[in-house]
């Protein structure tokens, strides 16, 4: 403990020396330096209440790192030691963030699980001290209170939260493949009950303040304020502080009780939880659900259940010990490394590295009110972009408008929007059949049918009516952007924006630039994408760009596997068993058989034999019979309105029988089938990096996971190569190459990595 504090203060000094050098010395002569040297945590005293302010320097968010922790302990010790102070308020000086969590770089720097476990124990001790504080501590929460931040808050005696959209509470550790390691697994079940605690810890979901109040996670809410005689955010924090101080005083005077009156349902559940048999049933049920959903690929959820169980059944000390040990173990797993990598990548892809565009995009026009067009419209209007949705026919347009409305209305049903907000947002949408108003558009996104002649036609029509600065973006999944731009008078303004369906659910946006696309056009497209809430990768133009190109060889392999007689259901369970969220056969149905055929043909022409494998004939025959997948009601499966269970489409048997291939025994085990699919995907991804379609491996991983459902537990194709070992991937590829030929030939970059042991991530 002492050592860590010493290290903490040391690093603090070195870290900030250059910045504060002159002031530091002058001041340290005149006063005791202990107080002034604090950069993360400070406190002031109002009456008999200490107000502890958390403010990580040079950062938008507060993170629990070593320095913050040690300063916090110092401050708390002073507060506990002072006779004048009777209670304390804990508040952040940053609007929009209480504490966003522990610093995950702290974990990355640990080499062994013991080191991590020790870190966890330090946190446990600190928070236990808070919990047992003789002076009541009120956590005044405004903004995100996540992970370690929430564990800190629930160690306090009382919690007051601002009721705004930015204020969310949660334990997202599971999403990083770890668990709440500072007493969270022990305190949370006591605070909100076992079922709710499991839900929070196993899903990692964010809980808004009002919901948190109902759950008993916070004790009071403070409404956000409007403008007064200073900016609203500033005054709201001040108000939160004032309210928190009053409650702190009340708690110190014993005028306010920390006990919460529980509702009937709550009392019943907590009574039920005292019966061991019921508890066992709950553990069993939760474990079953987790097994079903994770297919055993993610270790964290199971360990969370284990730790909670230990705490409840064997007492606090055993619980704490178990928590810290499992925390240490989890932090060393491949899965957590993969998930943390994804987290970093996601942060990276939420930034606009091209800078601010010259002109802020306010008016967007979308061509084509199909599933894609309407989806793009939906994510645009709810971010306040004035959006024109244009279609060729009134029925098509009406369908699109209804889709947007339904998307918004579903949010009303879930109570994340009010009906008024829905109407207000919907008023940003104009549906029309002509080009009226396009003269004001800052960006046109076309989502018309994938046909180069049609794309050229609309491009020319649009360019006749749009202003000079307007960007023309094409939402195509396979047509090369430079071919589309060939018809343009201003190719520097043409760019690809590849959205994924359903647009409002899929986080990824793939932006495709040609050699001629200007930097400002790219900046503009990225800024619109970010506004729409997307995670963005920017790739170079080429057949299939990055995502479609990676998917195509895998799909081709899917067809071959089906032709080799593997049942679609079996194939689906093999792929989901590997960590793909959607089974491979189902994926074909979801994408649309005609689209798949289209893409396979185009890319087959571009890349030749390497993209071969399964027979295109299979898709052609399916299209001919009208088996287009979910949209036509039949594909590999039969889709009926209101029927949940999927039944195989028996008419497929004859098609498959006609195209049957003989499986090769030595590469057709379940595992081989999985790896045949994955290695082709990975090989193609690495080739995209080799050919500089991709700028960074991080973007490749984000694109694969968020756009194509590459198993998140593997962290994306590049992380997978790093963690699995490039040599092993190459070996697998060579094995399949021997059986099937060129399609499995590992690319040069992959071979280089295998021989040099280089990694994509350092």
């Amino acid at each position, binding site marked *: 403990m002492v050592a860590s504090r010493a290290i903490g203060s040391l690093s603090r000094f070195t870290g900030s020396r250059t910045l504060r050098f002159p002031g530091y010395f002058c001041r340290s002569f005149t006063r005791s330096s202990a107080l002034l040297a604090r950069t993360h945590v400070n406190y002031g005293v109002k009456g008999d209440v200490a107000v502890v302010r958390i403010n990580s320097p040079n950062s938008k968010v507060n993170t629990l790192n070593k320095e913050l922790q040690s300063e916090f302990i110092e401050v708390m010790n002073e507060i506990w030691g002072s006779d004048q102070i009777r209670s304390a308020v804990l508040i952040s000086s940053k609007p929009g963030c209480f504490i966003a969590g522990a610093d995950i770089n702290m974990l990355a720097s640990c080499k062994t699980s013991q080191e991590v476990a020790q870190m966890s124990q330090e946190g446990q001790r600190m928070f236990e001290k808070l919990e047992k504080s003789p002076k009541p501590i009120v956590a005044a929460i405004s903004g995100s209170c996540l992970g370690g931040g929430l564990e800190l808050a629930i160690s306090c005696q009382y919690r007051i939260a601002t009721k705004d959209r930015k204020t969310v509470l949660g334990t997202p550790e599971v999403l990083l493949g770890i668990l709440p390691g500072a007493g969270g697994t022990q305190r949370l079940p006591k605070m909100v009950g076992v079922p709710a605690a499991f839900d929070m810890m196993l899903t990692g979901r964010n809980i808004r303040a009002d919901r948190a109040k109902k759950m008993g996670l916070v004790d009071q809410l403070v409404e956000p304020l409007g*403008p007064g005689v200073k900016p609203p955010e500033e005054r709201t924090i001040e108000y939160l502080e004032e309210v928190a101080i009053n409650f702190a005083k009340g708690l110190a005077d014993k005028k306010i009780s920390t006990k919460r009156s529980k509702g009937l349902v709550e009392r019943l559940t907590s009574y039920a939880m005292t019966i061991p048999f019921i508890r066992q049933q709950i553990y069993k049920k939760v474990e079953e659900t987790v097994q079903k959903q994770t297919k055993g690929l993610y270790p964290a959820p199971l360990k969370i259940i284990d730790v909670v169980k230990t705490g409840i059944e064997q007492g606090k000390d055993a619980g704490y010990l178990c928590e810290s040990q499992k925390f240490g173990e989890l932090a060393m797993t491949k899965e957590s490394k993969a998930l943390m990598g994804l987290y970093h990548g996601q942060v990276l892809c939420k930034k606009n590295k091209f800078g601010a565009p010259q002109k802020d995009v306010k008016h967007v026009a979308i061509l084509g009110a199909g599933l894609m067009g309407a989806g793009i419209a939906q994510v645009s209007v709810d971010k306040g972009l004035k959006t024109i949705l244009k279609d060729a026919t009134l029925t098509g347009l009406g369908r699109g408008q209804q889709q947007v409305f339904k998307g918004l209305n579903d949010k009303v049903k879930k109570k994340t929007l009010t009906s008024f907000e829905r109407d207000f947002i919907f008023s940003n949408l104009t549906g029309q059949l002509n080009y009226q108003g396009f003269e004001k558009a800052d960006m046109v996104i076309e989502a018309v049918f994938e046909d180069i002649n049609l794309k050229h036609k609309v491009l020319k029509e649009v360019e006749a009516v749009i202003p000079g600065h307007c960007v023309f973006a094409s939402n195509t999944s396979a047509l090369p952007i430079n071919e589309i731009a060939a018809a343009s008078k201003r190719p520097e303004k043409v760019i690809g924006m590849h959205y994924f369906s359903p647009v409002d659910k899929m986080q990824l946006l793939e932006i495709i630039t040609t050699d001629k696309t200007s930097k400002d056009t790219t900046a503009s497209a990225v800024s619109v994408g970010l506004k729409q809430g997307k995670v963005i990768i920017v790739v170079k133009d080429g057949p299939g760009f990055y995502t479609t190109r990676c998917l195509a060889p895998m799909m081709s392999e899917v067809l071959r596997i089906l032709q080799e007689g593997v049942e679609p259901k079996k194939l689906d369970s093999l792929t989901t068993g590997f960590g793909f969220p959607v089974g491979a056969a189902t994926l074909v149905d979801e994408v649309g058989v005609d689209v798949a055929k289209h893409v396979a043909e185009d890319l087959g022409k571009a890349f030749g034999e390497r993209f071969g494998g399964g027979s295109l004939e299979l898709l052609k025959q399916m299209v001919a019979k009208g088996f287009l997948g979910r949209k036509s009601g039949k594909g590999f499966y039969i889709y009926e309105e209101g029927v949940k269970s999927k039944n195989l489409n028996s008419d497929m048997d004859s098609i498959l029988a006609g195209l049957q291939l003989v499986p090769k025994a030595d590469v057709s085990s379940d595992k081989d089938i999985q790896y045949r699919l994955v290695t082709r995907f990975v090989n193609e991804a690495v080739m995209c990096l080799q050919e500089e379609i991709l700028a960074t491996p991080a973007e490749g991983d984000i694109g694969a996971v968020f756009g194509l459902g590459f198993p998140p537990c593997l962290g994306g194709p590049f992380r997978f190569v790093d963690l699995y070992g490039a040599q092993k991937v190459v070996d697998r590829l060579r094995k399949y190459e021997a059986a099937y030929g060129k399609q499995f030939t590992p690319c040069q970059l992959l071979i280089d990595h295998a021989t040099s042991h280089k990694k994509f991530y350092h």
Partner: protein
Amino acid sequence: MTSILTCTFKNLPSTSKWALRFSVRSLSCSAQLQTAQATQTKTKKTLAKPNIKNIVVVDGVRIPFLLSGTSYKDLMPHDLARAALTGLLQRTNVPKEVIDYLIFGTVIQEVKTSNVAREAALGAGFSDKTPAHTVTMACISSNQAMTTGVGLIASGQCDVVVAGGVELMSDVPIRHSRKMRKMMLDLNKAKTMGQRLSLISKFRLNFLAPELPAVAEFSTSETMGHSADRLAAAFAVSRTEQDEYALRSHSLAKKAQDEGLLSDIVPFKVPGKDTVTQDNGIRPSSLEQMAKLKPAFIKPYGTVTAANSSFLTDGASAMLIMAEEKALAMGYKPKAYLRDFVYVSQDPKDQLLLGPTYATPKVLEKAGLTMNDIDAFEFHEAFSGQILANFKAMDSDWFAQNCMGRKTKVGKPPLEKFNTWGGSLSLGHPFGATGCRLVITAANRLRRDGGQYGLVAACAAGGQGHAMIVEAYPK
């Protein structure tokens, strides 16, 4: 000479360089000029504008404002409106047939008398040849009635208009739920017994849950009291300040009532009950008593309580508005001119009740006046916190610059000129009727205490606001 000088002085926008130069000059000028400035308060210019008709208030009345659920509780809204109209007729002796038009404001509409103006006029014995309509604009409904009348006269369509407002909070329309209504309507259309039975079979007990008139703002789903509490917090108005202001309102109202200043009241003989002669919501209490109350909206730590909010009120008001020449031709001595007015609107969430802050500088600019020119401020008091927040907003350069897009603040009204005969907090606030009370009170105050200009301002649900300049009629 002096009058010309003062005129030019007034017409100079106070913020411009001109004003600065003028004041510099006046320092170096002869003493004559300085006396001119000193006497300026007594001889203000009139706000008459060339080519625009002067419009006057001949007189205005109201029936006593009562806490809802008291003496008026068995009546209907048009009964109250009728009483106000009858009172107006008696007070002014105006022949019914000269009235060209009638307009009333109301908020919660009784469905049976949705055009309450027409029903009340007919019931009060007005000519059936006098058209009437009803307007609604939340708490500034009767302001809207008045200004609509002003518009009709100014455009030459009418010479004599009666404007008023009414609200009966003792009874509000409570509806069946939408599901129940739908079933009842479908039943109406059902032709066979089979259809009827199948409809009835769909009945569920929750269909019977009644639907109350909305108390919350439709756009934000927030009640007004809740918004007022947040507003008070945003401007850091303390509970004590609010209680003190409410106490002031009640004390001043009590004083005005005792001194007989509330002369706009006409007694109302309620059928089957005693004659009501005065407001019954005026209850000066002590700060200690008020401090005991629990917050009514933001629990448990908010600052808005029942004692520092306006209460649910029944009441009605009416006034006689004429073109000046018509009034003079009929031998009337009007009470006041109705001059410039504005309507404003702003964010219904965070600035719901800041209408007066937005409206005041606008109407002053329009009339070429400054805060110093106003002799009587008559503001609608929805909540103590709301009035005090408006004061702070009006007194803040930050607010003026960042929220209103103005260069400087307009300034806070001096308390000695502000709602000196009580306000909505103490007299009561029948939503639709308050506007006329504000105007006639301003006119009466100017007549009694001397002074030329009154400023009436009010906030309203929906984030709207209104302000009007009332000019005393020369004696």
